[in-house]
Each structure stands twice: as C-alpha cells, then as structure tokens.
C-alpha cells in the first residue's frame, strides 16, 4: 500500500519527548510496506539526531517554543523536516573530532550527530540562520524493480 500525506508534530523542546518523535516517525514510515525495518530504524535514528540538535539549540538559546517535526510521506520518498528557533550554526564549520583511537578522543562526548544523519539518510540538507535551523532528511522508498 502506498500512502501520501503529511504528519506534523509540534513538540516541546524537552528530551523526554524524543521517544514520542521517534515512535510517530517510525509508525508513519511503516505505513508504506515497501520500506524495510532497517531503513525505518535508520530514519528513526536520523530524526532523533535532528530533534536532539533542535532541542539543544532552543534550550541554549533560551527559546521556549516547540520544535516542529514535519513528515511528508510521498510515494517515492519520506521527507522529514525538523525545525527549531535556536540561534543556528555553521554546518560547514562543525569541529572535527580527533582520530577515534587517539586518547584525546575520549574528551569529546558530542559531535557525532551530523555525521550520523548524513550517513543514514539518502539526502540531508541544513538551512540555518540567526532565527533558527531547518534540517531536511530524505529516505527514498525502493520500488518493486529496485535491486536494493
């Protein structure tokens, strides 16, 4: 079955709501039976990373608004946009981490989220500025003729 539709969540910018975001996105993605469970798990993880960054951005900016998670369920792909109203960042100048086998690597507990999103989604784009950030994640849905 193929369903097209939009699901939009307005979520309080609190970590306790991440599980709800993952559950809704996972269930929405599962409506299309052509997406296998591993890709749905990838999507849940990518969205969780984006929503975590959105919550952090708003908390650190002192913005009390809810974050927005918008799922566009189309025939060929699932597109998720996570929007916050934090003060933004430069995605091209995110600090790089020391080599994983370097002792200094243990000093860094964060900084993996963007890299994970880019690995997990088929497309990742980020628009960011002083008024907020929108992260767009796309996972393509294989059609019957696809090899993968």
């Amino acid at each position, binding site marked *: 079955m193929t369903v097209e539709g939009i699901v939009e969540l307005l979520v309080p910018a609190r970590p306790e709501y991440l599980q709800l975001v*993952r559950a809704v996105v996972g269930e929405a993605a599962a409506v299309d039976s052509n997406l296998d469970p591993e890709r749905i798990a990838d999507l849940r993880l990518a969205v*969780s990373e984006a929503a*975590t960054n959105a919550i952090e951005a708003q908390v650190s900016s002192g913005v009390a608004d809810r974050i927005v998670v918008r799922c566009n369920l189309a025939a060929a792909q699932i597109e998720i946009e996570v929007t916050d109203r934090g003060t933004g960042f430069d995605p091209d100048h995110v600090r790089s981490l020391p080599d994983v*086998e370097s002792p200094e690597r*243990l000093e*860094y*507990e964060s900084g*993996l989220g963007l890299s*994970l999103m880019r690995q*997990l989604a088929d497309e990742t784009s980020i628009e960011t500025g002083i008024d907020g950030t929108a992260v767009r994640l796309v996972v393509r849905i294989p059609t019957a003729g696809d090899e993968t």
Partner: protein
Amino acid sequence: MHLEFDRISRDPWTVLVLRGDLDMAGAPGLRREVAQLVAAGDNRLVLDLSAVDFIDSTGLGAVIGALRRVRSHDGDLVLVCPEPRLQRVFELCDLDRVFELHGSVATAVGAPA
C-alpha cells in the same frame, strides 16, 4: 521513565544493566549511575546494553564519558551489546574501534581487563 538501571555484582566487576532508550533523556541517568559507582570504588564496570531499545550519538557520548571516568580511576569498562541494530550505531561512529562489543556478560567479564 525512559531508562532504568540494575546493578549486579560479578566480582571484581559490577554489571550495570540498562533498560530502555539511551538518548538525550536517558544519558544523564547513565552519567549519574557511573559517577556513583566510581565514587563508591566500583571502577571495573560492565555496561549491559542487551535490553537497550535505542541508542543515538548522545547515548554514545555518555558511554564515552563512562569510559573516561573509570579510566581516570584506573578502572576499566566493557560493553555487552548483542543487538546488531545497536552494534551498527557504534560502527557508523567508528566506536567499534574503541569498544569491544561482547555478546554476553559471561564473555565480557571473562575478557582481559
């Protein structure tokens, strides 16, 4: 409650069993548990992730923090992570090169410290 903990003694190891989601909501609880254990002198820890349903980069960060804390007290930390979906997250972040992921507590505590 998104993440719950049980402590089991397997002398000289302490096994910390996690149940639930290890994300931004669960990570502070892990940091607190590890800080309490290390303060009590339990610095050889097994983190049992067998019953963890979900882990993300924030959860991985808390595991990295746990390793740093026990090592700063001359301890060690090993992971039990038999679930392929969780193992994949470690691999995507190259952290399978930092942590050996054991299939069971028995193999983890039998491993060289």
